[in-house]
């Protein structure tokens, strides 16, 4: 109005605008559409991430993922620290399974410095144990959590209790419940405490019982079936197009598991077969995770049976205060609960890494895939879809 009065009319085409393109398809001023922000602070959003939704009635017509709400520049922080100082920062890149980050950063430095062969046997088994325990506690939250997105809160309570018991074991083994800081370059930071295996076995028996109960509660539940079946379907042809990995890919029959495809540590010595399903919908993905829960319990039992009784926990390595790694680059990956989780690591001969780049599955799952998958979905199903893809925002914005 004032501009008009002054005789000045800005050329809006030249101004950057997020909505400039959308305006062609979705005319918010037509009152047919409504814009809703889901997050960044919303109990249904797993972590600090926002989804901008354009809805028509209850139906989503367009979605856009926004990250950056917790960006703390983890990669850059690690690049400004000594090699041994990286792991306490790295765990923040995925709080849900912190051990995966520790493993990646330790293995990258070991590979580039040539100490990967020196990691003691005992340390390798302990690393596998902590990685599987991390997967287990993630699944104890994730499987019933899917029911939680459909307002089935009971399973979540059961799962969180059992997860706490696994965190008790983590506390015993690593000295912390969530930020374990257990795997360091060269090895691990402690042997199994006395009586650990017995206490773990007690917990695993409780979890066996939980596995049967949650099956009855969720997978033979008419409400869960009605809502989850056929929702947010991933088809095998989408897998490569979107870069879908882990249980999301296995839910539609594409068997991808780094532990099998590119074995690391001693996974080749364990007897397991990654579960799959064919439907590719939320029900199928949750069902695959439920089977994986059984498998993870079994793997922990196998690891505890096969690991040596004692041994060195850390390789003999140079003084950590001036440990320099020769010029080189590497990519190390592992199978996290969410799928292939990798780190690209570059060193330049100095005492600090040149470049650290974490590639987590949520990067594609929660941005490219989620944005497309939400179109046509009901607003009430948005959380369910997001959770079913196992979104972990911190690993998107490292």
């Amino acid at each position, binding site marked *: 109005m004032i501009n008009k009065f002054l005789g000045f009319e800005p050329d809006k085409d030249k101004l950057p605008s997020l909505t400039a393109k959308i305006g062609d398809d979705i005319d918010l001023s037509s009152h047919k559409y409504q814009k809703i922000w889901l997050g960044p602070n919303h109990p249904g959003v797993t972590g600090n991430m926002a989804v901008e939704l354009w809805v028509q009635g209850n139906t989503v017509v367009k979605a856009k993922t926004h990250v950056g709400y917790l960006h703390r520049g983890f990669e850059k922080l690690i690049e400004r620290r000594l090699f041994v100082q990286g792991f306490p920062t790295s765990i923040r890149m995925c709080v849900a399974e912190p051990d995966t980050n520790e493993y990646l950063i330790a293995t990258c430095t070991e590979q580039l410095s040539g100490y990967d062969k020196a990691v003691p046997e005992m340390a390798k088994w302990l690393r596998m144990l902590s990685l599987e325990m991390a997967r287990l506690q993630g699944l104890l939250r994730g499987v019933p959590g899917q029911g939680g997105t459909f307002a089935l809160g009971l399973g979540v309570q059961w799962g969180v209790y059992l997860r706490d018991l696994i965190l008790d074991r983590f*506390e015993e083994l*690593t*000295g912390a419940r969530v930020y374990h800081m257990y795997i360091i370059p060269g*090895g691990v930071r402690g042997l199994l*405490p006395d009586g650990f295996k017995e206490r773990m076995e007690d917990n695993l028996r409780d979890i066996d019982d939980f596995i049967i109960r949650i099956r009855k509660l969720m997978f033979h539940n008419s409400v869960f079936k009605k809502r989850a079946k056929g929702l947010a379907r991933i088809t095998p042809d989408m897998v490569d197009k979107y870069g879908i990995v882990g249980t999301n890919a296995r839910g539609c029959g594409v068997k991808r598991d780094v532990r099998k495809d590119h074995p690391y540590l001693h996974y080749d010595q364990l007897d397991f077969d990654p579960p799959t399903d064919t439907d590719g919908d939320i029900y199928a993905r949750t069902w695959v995770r439920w089977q994986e829960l059984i498998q993870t319990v079994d793997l922990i039992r196998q690891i505890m049976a096969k690991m040596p009784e004692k041994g060195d926990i850390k390789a003999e390595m140079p003084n950590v205060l001036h440990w320099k790694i020769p010029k080189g680059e590497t990519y190390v990956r592992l199978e996290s609960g969410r799928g292939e989780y990798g780190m690209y690591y570059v060193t330049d001969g100095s005492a600090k890494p040149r470049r650290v780049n974490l590639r987590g599955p949520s990067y594609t799952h929660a941005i490219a895939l989620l944005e497309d998958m939400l179109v046509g979905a009901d607003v009430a199903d948005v959380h369910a879809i997001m959770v079913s893809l196992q979104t972990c925002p911190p690993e998107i914005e490292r």
Partner: protein
Amino acid sequence: MSLKDILTPFTAWSKVVKEPVTIKDPLNREAAPRYRGFHDNDIDTCIGCGTCEAICENEAIDLVPVDGIETKDGDSGLRPKIDYGRCCWCALCVDICTTNSLRLTNAYKWVDTDPDNFRFVPGVDEKDWYKREEGWRKPEPNYEFYGLKRVEMGELHPEEREDSFVEMIKGYSKEQAEAEADRCVECGICTATCPAHMGIPEYIKAIRNDDLEEGLRILYDTNPLPEICGRICTHKCETVCTIGHKGDPLSIRWLKRYIADQNPSEKYKKILETDILKKNGKKVAIIGSGPAGLSAAHYLVLLGYEVEIFEKLEKAGGMMRYGIPEYRLPYDQIDKDVNYILSLGVKIHYNVTVGKDITLKKLGEDFDAVFAGTGLHLGRSTRIEGTDHENVYQSIELLRKITQGEEIYVPEKIVVIGGGNVAMDITRSLARLQNQKYGKVQVIATSLETEEKMPADREEVIEAREEKAIVNPGWSPQRIEIVDGKIKGLHVVQCLSLFDETGNFNPQCNMENKNFFEADMIVESIGQGMDVSYISEDIKEHLELGPRGRFRVNDYFQTSLPWLFMGGDTIQGPDVIHGIANGHKAALGIDKFLIGE
């Protein structure tokens, strides 16, 4: 969808009759024994090395002074202060702690209204969790962040060296030196303890970076005799080395030698940028070319002074050349250090005895200042019965003669009285000469001090024994038995203690426990005194005396006569590194005295 799918979820109701699983009293839940909770520090064990501060990736640790803890050798007097606004409880500080004094207890609850309280000094500020035994400690076994084992130094086998004066320590190779340098945690405790305050962590870093020219520059900042010190320094730095608390201390001395050995003498001037030195037109005379004199000469000539050294003997080096055997310090290495200093323009007059050939007064008149580093060249005697016999010698005298190439009396049986490094030097030199002459060794070194309290370096004792000399400490010499004008041996009794309650020297002996050491020759090596005959009476009356009969000097080694400075063994020590430090400080003092601030 079947009826089953509607009914099955109701099985969850069976849980209603089960006992709840929640913890009844979550506020008083005990954490696991390994839990990483709040810090505790055993401040008596802690030495304030600051390695915890160095490894902390959050900069949560600061080393701060603490009331009641004094700075002393091997202890910075500082203690870590933790900022819980930054700490992430990773416990790297505990894992790297060089003394194992730092730990995390398993306490995890702390409520306070004042945010400043969350910055505290563990072990000093009272906290109720210190009594907890449980918590995070450095993991076991074989979990180290730096090497605890010293890289072994190659040396001649006892068979190879027992009849030879060839240098026995071989020196480090590049790989060995770099591996040894890698063990350093750069705490700087060594620098504080070194009398010359050498930049030890810095030159060790230069070795790691393979920049030995930079290493040499760092050495010459504080020490112009690196080849010599790299071989025979008393290495107080190694005694306090932080790594020594859990493992072997760093071989700081050998690392210094490695830098000096690897730099050829013809490149020194270029590396040290001393090709052209400015002159300020002032002249300083130096008496004695020992470590103190050479050090003063070096730093004075760099400051622009014209320096002339007056040396009584035919070669430079003082006690380093005439007191230390060649197998420990080869003469060509002394020459390397000395020649560099002389090449800077320092003039030296050999065979000139001040007090005889030229008076101190004359020096005072001809020069703007005089520095005296005359050393301790007079042997002390036990004054027991029989010491006036012609075959009772002073070790210092014999060592000088060996260096000068003079023939000395070497009988088949020798007893050395003394437990210090000089006693070991003469014992081992005589053992070599006996080996050359008779093909066997029969030298007994005996001292008042017991094995544990012998002042000699431990390795000297071990090596002397390897060379078949007998070291039999803990005996007090009583008299020398002489029959028909020939020495038969030394009577001794067991020595129980050396000092009384007040700390005065007052040996107590057990007269019942006697022993007799057969000998044809006795060597006394119980310390040296200074020869001040070069100072004429009219000058001496102006000089104030300090404790222990030494002349009083100020912080810059200036005596009560402003133009006369003194340093080295006559003032401090006795050892090479104090001499070097004194010479350096005196050079700065002379500059201050002559030029002003």
